């Protein structure tokens, strides 16, 4: 049993278990006739002012884009962190610190630039 095969079995098992639960809940519940008012989108007792496709602030997407960029920089730190002790023990400690130091300096400059330029402000 390779870990991948086990993970795939679990993945699909849980997915189909979830779909099965959805199906069962539809089967057991009471059946009602179609009701136009009921099947409208939820609103607090008033006719809906806006539809679901309302304007979404650009802010969300800017956050997501900055997230991707910083996420990759963090992913680069994972192999660095995991092999750090080996590098240090083989006498390359200052070198590996310097390599990541330059990278981190760029990262920190980017982060503070974003903060300073109000790209991360939410009103």
């Amino acid at each position, binding site marked *: 049993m390779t870990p991948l095969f086990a993970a795939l079995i679990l993945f699909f098992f849980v997915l189909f278990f979830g779909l099965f639960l959805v199906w069962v809940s539809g089967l057991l519940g009471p059946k009602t006739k179609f009701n136009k008012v009921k099947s409208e989108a939820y609103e607090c007792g008033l006719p809906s002012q806006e539809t679901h496709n309302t304007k979404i602030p650009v802010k969300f997407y800017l956050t997501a884009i900055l997230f991707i960029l910083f996420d990759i920089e963090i992913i680069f730190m994972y192999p660095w962190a995991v092999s750090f002790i080996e590098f240090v023990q083989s006498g390359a400690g200052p070198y590996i610190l310097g390599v990541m130091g330059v990278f981190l300096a760029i990262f920190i400059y980017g982060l503070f630039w974003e903060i300073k330029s109000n*790209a991360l402000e939410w009103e």
Partner: protein
Amino acid sequence: MDISTIIFIILATIIVVSSVSVLMTPNPIYAAFSLAITMVTMGFLYFSLDADFIAGVQLIVYAGAVMVLFVMVLMLFDLEKETEAYSKGTFSVFLKLMCGLFLTGAVALSVRQSIKGLSDVAKVATPAEQVETIKLLAGRLFTQYVFAFEALGVLLLVIAIGVVAVARSRGGTHARH
């Protein structure tokens, strides 16, 4: 048929079906979700190739970040159905299809030619060896490829600044009022 073959067949089928549905679905949101399925399955395929770390990165970066961004942007655009999803004109479609088929043939042929020198039997790594693989990867990354690594740091910085600048920019001569 051994277990790795079954895994490969299942994953390959999912990848092909979902990537075809990226091409075929007229609604971009469904296309984005299909692409997300492709990415996740591709990640699992990397696990079967003993590239565990790369597979994890694929899940984190592609499935977890890039595709979320795509979906968010599509929600921002609010495009229910596209009016003209595909390029028109039978001739241009024919041309493009021919291009695609030609490329497939070329790639398949070159693949057939290029694999002669490589052994088909690969060793299977145990979890302990996987850890060593990561350390090997890190060792190469921070010595042999260190310049590329730092250059990517600069690239990401430039893009982080550029994206904010592009998002801020307004006006221009072509604005439709």
